[in-house]
């Protein structure tokens, strides 16, 4: 046949197949799979964009250009052209003078309009807290509590800033873009940018960081970012929130992984559903293949006909599913709308392309290999009812699933997650297939004879060994998804929310001198607070890695440059600090440990430090050299005292150090802190309540978004269960019809079908329960770094749920079987 005639024929063929209802199951499975995947893609894309939006509140803008010189006119023009709001700020360290005293502070001069995103909270002279888009008026300055404490200031006092005098008009309680740097004890002074020239502090060589903060429509911000990125001058960069706020980064990272896990679960489920539907479709069409062959089509033409048919169905299902997916996602957002904030940004092109791509990839991987069997079949062989054994290789389906997981991983931006998933999934499938084959083998050896009923159910399961194995695998995947999404999800999200417990430390005390340690601990204990852990710290500079001098300029990323430049707070300890987890190497023995270092994983990655590297730190002029023997993961959002680098106490314990601690101060107990500061005036107490509340709010919002998406994956799980049962519908109908013709009562037929379903459900559920436990454990320890207490009842629960769900979802089938007159079934068979 010629090309166009072939197309016309394929189209007619497809239309007839659709009208006859032959493609319904496959098309439906594809559509639902695409709906699930597309809505997850839309949802995660938009949630992610909305998170970026929320994150920008922590930058006080959508986009921050930061450089060692003010932004030039061309840049401003571009921003204005894109209708972006712009605000300038200049940040630099300098001295403040007041009442004859001097104090080093970080100055921040901001122009009118600051902040573009988020809000500033200040305490006015009358003690009232004001919150909003605020900035100091010209001639006024705001200081944080540290500066006020150090210089013993009152609101209304006059400060000398360079050559300019400013009036202290407010105490900064919270500024949106403040970095939570507890170890950089430099206090903050904020004033209006209009006053900056008069201070005379802007000179050649002064270390000023100029920022241009921009905000506006998401599309325009993205366009600006795209325009700016390749044009960044030397010494300039775009800031992003994640490096500035490690504790928020932790939360975002977990959310992204939760979303990613859900999306991948949906992908796996969708694949299973489509595989089952394809199997059913082809099993019903060998006869058609034979007829077409006997009518004179070559094997290649028949193959192309079916491939073309699948292509049509795939495209149609892809488009339909994407549109429906968008609608589903809109509904989800409406449900969770107020939680995610108003006016979510529209999804990106990738989310739109996800649906049709997924449909085609699924079909290519799952339908084409079994379709290849058509080519090896002669017309005569099929007419003789010698049906080809559809040997479905494992490579193509796995490849398809891998591609889809890869696509999702790319979208989520996490290759490790995809690897863990793919490996875990393959292991689970192999394990389940093995156990299922074993059980079926055992069941085949059950003695026959006796009454029809429960025993007959398990026996008839065993009489279709391959189908039984496929069904058990599909059902366990579906059930595992259900269990993971209900029980394990609750455990995981609970653990996540508990990672910032209600009594998370909200006060940090720094600058504790060694002789004051017992006094501070006693006083806190007397005030009814749990005895805090005091950690020593000493300032150190990293000078060499493996004997090579550390040169900040050698590093590509700005973050690495800054880390290499700054002084570290080294600490020492005999035990692994709470909230830390070893991710490589081994912790040292408690007594008489040799000189060595333990380094935080993120820092090691940024600076290119590997296990076994030799680091040299300069502490007060003396070099200290040792090997890195362990890497640690640190839960930054735990609000405990954490260190990048730790050494054994037996080595550095004699160094002159100051101590740091954190504790939870219940509300309305400020007098405890006041008493502490009165007794030890050199201490600085930092209040991080506002930051904790902020992170907690972020976690709660994220958790709800993730939960909403779980509901969707749940739907995909149910679809797989349905497809697994539909795959054997015809066989069961025929069996039941024949049994009824032979005189089986309705009760007997019902008993056989129900008991078969129940056995199937129980076995699949047991395997699913074990799988969900493994999945939860791997997810908690490898992906989320959360302490997870798993429900030990999962396997039992899985068995019960499997029996119930499979039997219930098989109920319509049972009714059909019992109601249809046996003659109709036999004629169809």
């Amino acid at each position: 046949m010629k090309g166009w005639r072939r197309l016309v024929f394929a189209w007619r063929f497809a239309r007839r197949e659709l009208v006859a209802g032959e493609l319904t199951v496959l098309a439906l499975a594809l559509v639902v799979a695409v709906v699930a995947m597309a809505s997850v893609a839309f949802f995660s894309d938009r949630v992610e964009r909305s998170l970026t939006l929320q994150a920008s509140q922590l930058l006080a803008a959508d986009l921050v250009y930061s450089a060692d010189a003010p932004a030039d006119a061309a840049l401003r023009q571009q921003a204005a052209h894109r209708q972006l709001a712009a605000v300038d700020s200049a940040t630099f360290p300098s001295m403040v003078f007041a009442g004859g005293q001097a104090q080093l502070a970080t100055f921040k001069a901001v122009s009118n309009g600051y902040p573009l995103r988020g809000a500033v909270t200040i305490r006015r002279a009358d003690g009232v807290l004001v919150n909003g888009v605020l900035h100091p008026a010209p001639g006024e300055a705001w200081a944080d509590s540290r500066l006020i404490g150090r210089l013993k200031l009152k609101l209304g006092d006059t400060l000398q800033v360079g050559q300019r005098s400013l009036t202290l008009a407010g105490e900064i309680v919270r500024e949106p873009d403040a970095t939570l740097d507890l170890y950089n004890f430099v206090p903050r002074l904020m004033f209006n940018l209009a006053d900056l020239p008069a201070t005379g502090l802007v000179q050649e060589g002064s270390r000023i960081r100029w920022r241009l903060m921009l905000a506006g429509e998401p599309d325009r911000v993205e366009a600006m970012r795209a325009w700016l990125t390749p044009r960044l001058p030397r010494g300039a960069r775009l800031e992003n929130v994640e490096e500035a706020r490690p504790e928020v980064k932790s939360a975002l990272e977990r959310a992204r992984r939760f979303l990613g896990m859900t999306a991948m679960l949906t992908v796996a489920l969708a694949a299973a559903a489509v595989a089952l539907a394809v199997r059913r479709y082809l099993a019903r069409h060998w006869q058609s293949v034979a007829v077409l062959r006997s009518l004179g089509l070559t094997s290649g033409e028949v193959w192309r006909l079916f491939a073309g048919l699948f292509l049509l169905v795939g495209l149609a299902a892809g488009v339909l599913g994407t549109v429906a997916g968008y609608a589903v996602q809109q509904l989800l957002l409406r449900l969770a709308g107020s939680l995610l904030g108003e006016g979510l940004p529209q999804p990106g092109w990738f989310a739109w392309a996800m649906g049709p791509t997924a449909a085609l990839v699924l079909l290519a991987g799952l339908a084409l290999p079994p379709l290849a069997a058509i080519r090896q079949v002669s017309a005569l062989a099929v007419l003789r009812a010698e049906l080809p054994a559809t040997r479905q290789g494992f490579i193509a389906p796995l490849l398809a699933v891998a591609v889809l997981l890869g696509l999702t991983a790319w979208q989520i931006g996490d290759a490790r997650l995809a690897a863990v998933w793919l490996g875990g999934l393959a292991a689970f499938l192999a394990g389940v297939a093995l156990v299922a084959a074993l059980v079926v083998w055992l069941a085949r050896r059950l003695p026959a004879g006796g009454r029809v009923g429960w025993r007959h159910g398990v026996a008839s399961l065993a009489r279709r060994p391959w189908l039984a194995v496929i069904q058990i695998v599909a059902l366990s995947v579906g059930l595992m998804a259900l269990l993971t999404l209900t029980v394990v999800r609750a455990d995981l999200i609970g653990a996540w929310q508990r990672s910032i417990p209600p009594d998370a430390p909200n006060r940090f005390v720094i600058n504790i001198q060694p002789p004051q340690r017992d006094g501070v601990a006693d006083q806190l204990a007397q005030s009814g607070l749990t005895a805090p852990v005091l950690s020593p710290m000493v300032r150190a500079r990293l000078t060499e890695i493996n004997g090579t001098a550390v040169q900040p300029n050698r590093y590509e990323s700005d973050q690495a440059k800054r880390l290499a430049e700054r002084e570290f707070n080294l600490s020492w300890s005999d035990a692994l600090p709470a909230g830390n987890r070893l991710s490589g190497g081994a912790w040292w023995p408690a007594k008489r440990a040799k000189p060595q270092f333990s380094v935080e994983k993120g820092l090691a990655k940024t600076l290119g430090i590997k296990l076994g590297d030799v680091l040299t730190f300069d502490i007060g002029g003396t070099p200290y050299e040792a090997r890195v023997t362990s890497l640690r993961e640190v839960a930054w959002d735990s609000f405990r005292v954490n260190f990048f680098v730790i050494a054994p106490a037996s080595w550095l314990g004699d160094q002159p150090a100051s101590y740091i601690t954190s504790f939870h101060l219940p509300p309305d107990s400020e007098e405890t802190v006041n008493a502490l500061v009165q007794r030890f005036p050199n201490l600085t107490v930092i209040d991080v309540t506002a930051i904790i509340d902020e992170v907690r709010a972020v976690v709660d919002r994220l958790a709800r978004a993730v939960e909403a998406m779980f509901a969707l994956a749940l739907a995909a799980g149910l679809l797989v269960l349905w497809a697994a049962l539909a795959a054997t519908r015809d066989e069961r109908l025929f069996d039941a019809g024949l049994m009824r013709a032979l005189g089986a009562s309705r009760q007997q037929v019902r008993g056989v079908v129900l008991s078969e379903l129940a056995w199937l459900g129980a076995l699949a559920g047991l395997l699913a329960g074990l799988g969900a436990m493994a999945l939860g454990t791997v997810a908690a320890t490898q992906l989320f770094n959360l302490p997870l207490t798993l429900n030990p009842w999962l396997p039992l629960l899985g068995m019960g749920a499997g029996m119930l769900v499979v039997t219930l979802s098989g109920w319509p089938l049972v009714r059909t079987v019992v109601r249809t007159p046996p003659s109709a079934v036999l004629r169809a068979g």
Partner: protein
Amino acid sequence: MAASELGKQVSFNGETLTILRSATLSLFEGESVAIVGTSGSGKSTLLSLLAGLDYPSSGEIALFGQRLSGLSEDQRAVLRRDKVGFVFQNFQLMPQLTALENVLLPLELSGRRDAREAARAMLERVGLGHRLKHYPKHLSGGEQQRVALARAFVIRPKLLFADEPTGNLDPATGRQIIDLLFTLNEEEGTALVLVTHDNELASRCDAIYRLVDGKLSGAGR
């Protein structure tokens, strides 16, 4: 068995098709009748109705003195289970069951204790004692129909319905199957309703009915 004034209509796309009109026939213990007709004449429909597998639109059937219209679906099933055997044109064996298991099925349905022995003995009688554990796909057409015969006769039915039992077999094999069918029939004293388009085959029965366009006529012998 007695059937009077049986009719069957089905509607399709709003049109009513009459498949069978006022068919009347009867059969006594140990007797055999053939129903002869071309394809599409309504033979299989008549058989389904007589066996209680389908419902007539009009008329009445009685099996073993019981009116089928007065029986529930399950009561009919019990009737079939204990007293009625079937042989189909396309064998209708369960592909996932071995020969032995296929023959066991009706015995298991009625909960017979000596099911295994009975099934094995029956398969030996049809000459398949050596193929008990084979699946239908490993058996030839003739062998599959022998299994079907064994399945039909293993319950010692009073009445056997055979729907074109040789339709899917070559003439030689078909003759063997028919011989076996009539032998078993005689030995067991079973009444037989044989649906066929083969006049020669029909002539081996005690009575012949002809079905033309849904009309049943005559009991020529």
